[in-house]
């Protein structure tokens, strides 16, 4: 297979974006827990509702988005802060949305599981597997309009057992759509391990059933993701049809905040921290001379400034008027 190697700039971008995502989630977690201690109640605090963090899954997002441009459509799931940030979704308005403020992407209607940024062609759904078909439709629109641009759907390995996955894969293949399905294999669907829900150990073999190319990316490594996705994106852009890529990754935290993961086998729980892809990637870049202490400090400052700005913007924005609930039902 043709080797695809990210440039130094691309690798530094992937590192910086992973670091940004991780810090972003830390701040979200902090805000989320405000008012929820000592008694955890989802409705309390400045950030109510469910919260699914993506710590550990950053390589999927950055290794994908590094290949995507403004004309490419990305639809995601309930755990999508990483993809949103990597796709360049407006961080101020995304944060405002997560806090339910009027300045948010959807004026506070959607919240963290429903992030929609039309300017960045970013789209999510909290119903498992149901983000697949709209991505196929977006790919069809690009094809029929004769426009550049592909469409990508990201789903979890648990979502692959949803009917929508199989229907969309077949449709994308028979119509030869510029479409890519990315499966983030973190091994768990809430409390159900992959081996108890999925009849094959790796979903890439299922691509054969739809006559498309499939690949499994081991190691939760941005450079490996970059390579596999790069090949698939090139095929899609060249009109050669859809691909399936499953990426091995790790859900470093519980399914949602408040999940104590009592169902995790103790050895798996103990092994988790060592699977963190961020320090590993950082060390590699340092050892290869790409990342110096100075550069790291510069990057860190830049990230913190951007996050400070986004959170300040979000928290300064007013909550919507109650009656705004009645607006935008119809366009």
């Amino acid at each position, binding site marked *: 297979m043709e080797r695809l190697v990210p440039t130094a700039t691309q690798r530094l971008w992937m590192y910086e974006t992973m670091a940004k995502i991780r810090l972003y989630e830390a701040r979200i977690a902090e805000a989320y827990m405000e008012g929820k201690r000592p*008694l*955890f*109640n*989802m*409705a309390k605090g400045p950030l*109510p*509702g*469910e919260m699914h963090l993506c710590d550990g899954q950053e390589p999927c997002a950055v290794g994908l988005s590094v290949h995507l441009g403004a004309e490419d459509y990305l639809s995601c799931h309930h755990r999508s802060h990483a993809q949103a940030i990597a796709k360049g979704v407006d961080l101020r308005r995304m944060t405002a*949305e997560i806090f*339910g*403020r*009027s300045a948010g992407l959807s*004026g*506070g*209607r*959607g*919240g*963290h*599981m*429903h992030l929609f940024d039309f300017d960045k062609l970013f789209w999510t*759904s*909290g*119903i*498992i*597997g*149901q983000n697949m078909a709209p991505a196929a439709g977006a790919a069809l629109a690009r094809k029929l309009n004769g426009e550049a641009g592909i469409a990508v759907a990201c789903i979890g390995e*648990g*979502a692959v*057992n*949803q*009917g*929508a996955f199989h229907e969309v894969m077949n449709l994308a293949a028979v119509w030869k759509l510029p479409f890519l399905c990315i499966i983030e294999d973190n091994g768990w*669907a*809430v*409390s*159900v391990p992959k081996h*108890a*829900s*999925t009849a094959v150990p790796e979903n890439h073999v299922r691509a054969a059933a739809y006559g498309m190319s499939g690949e499994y990316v081991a190691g939760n490594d941005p450079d490996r993701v970059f390579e596999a996705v790069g090949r698939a994106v090139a095929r899609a852009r060249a009109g050669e049809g859809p691909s399936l890529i499953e990426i091995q990754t790790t859900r470093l935290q519980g399914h949602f905040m*408040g999940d104590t993961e*009592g*169902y995790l086998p103790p050895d798996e729980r103990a092994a988790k921290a060592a699977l963190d892809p961020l320090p590993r990637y950082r060390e590699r870049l340092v050892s290869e001379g790409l990342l110096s202490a100075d550069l790291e400090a510069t990057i860190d400052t830049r990230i913190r400034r951007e996050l400070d700005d986004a959170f300040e913007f979000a928290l300064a924005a007013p*909550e*919507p*008027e*109650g*009656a*705004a*609930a*009645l607006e935008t*039902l119809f366009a």
Partner: protein
Amino acid sequence: MNSSVTSAPWRNRVERKLTIAKAINEAIAQEMRIDPRVFLMGEDIGAIGGIWGHTGGLLDEFGAERVRDTPISETAFIGAAVGAANLGLRPIVELMFVDFFGVCMDAIYNLAAKSSYHSNGRFKAPMVILTAIGGGYSDSTQHSQCLYATFAHLPGLKIVLPSNAYDAKGLLTAAMRDDNPVLFMFHKNLQGMGFLGTVKTAITDVPDDGYEVPIGVANIVRPGRDVTLVGLGATVHQAMEAAGRLSQQGVDAEVIDLRTIVPLDRNAIVRSVTKTGRMLVIDDDYRNCGLAGEIIATVAELGVPLRAPLRRLTYPDIPTPFARSMEQFALPNADRIVDEALNLVTGAAK
């Protein structure tokens, strides 16, 4: 027909308060012990004990054959429950949030709901579908709906919705013993899970023996003369709070807990309105073509003499917004019930 069965006879014993979650758990465990045909399947009901806290311990007691974690394949496992039920098993299937039923609606309304009818009664589908409903904690558009009227519109499904732990155990036991598909909906705010906020009045005394609360019988939870407040699930508690406040203002409200949506206890409603001459239906589901409208039509078409127009207080016809300000704007609550009821009684109703 006697509308009130909460005074079910049970032996002298110490009062024992349970949450709805615990009451559901006990009902399932007791039925599984006496009926080997009963088994449970759904997402995260095994090791984790259900994200709503009601299936804990069942996997340990009954094993993985009878307590089955499923893939996220609702079309497959809810449809499979129909086939298993047709051949003599009595599945209980859970789909965490009612909002997720869209992906498997055919299994519900073309397979389960029509099994008996289009087989001329030969293929029974004795199955229970458990699901959580309701919002109020900022879970936004795809995780906060009630949707009970959607299912009530489809013939062939019985639908129950307990407001308290006593009814939850009794209705679920009746549902498991029913030869038809029964949708058992529990409101998250009543479930007794601290992380969702808990309405304390849903935690009630529950007999430890098995017992049934019959499906299709409403409960008069507070008798009154001036106005009938009809609620179900969470809105019963709002109506009771409102009734307490109304009584301080000299208005004596009767509160009906429907308990069952299909079949609907129309007699209990009509009897009450015949007595009070006024009715306010409180419904946390969407308004258009909804349950409140159905209840109002039931009274209207009988020509019951009225002292005020029939009214409804419902969730509006919009998805549930995330932001707290907007969600609270949309949900019914005790304050609004008091206002509406006072308007009815003082004749100020628009």
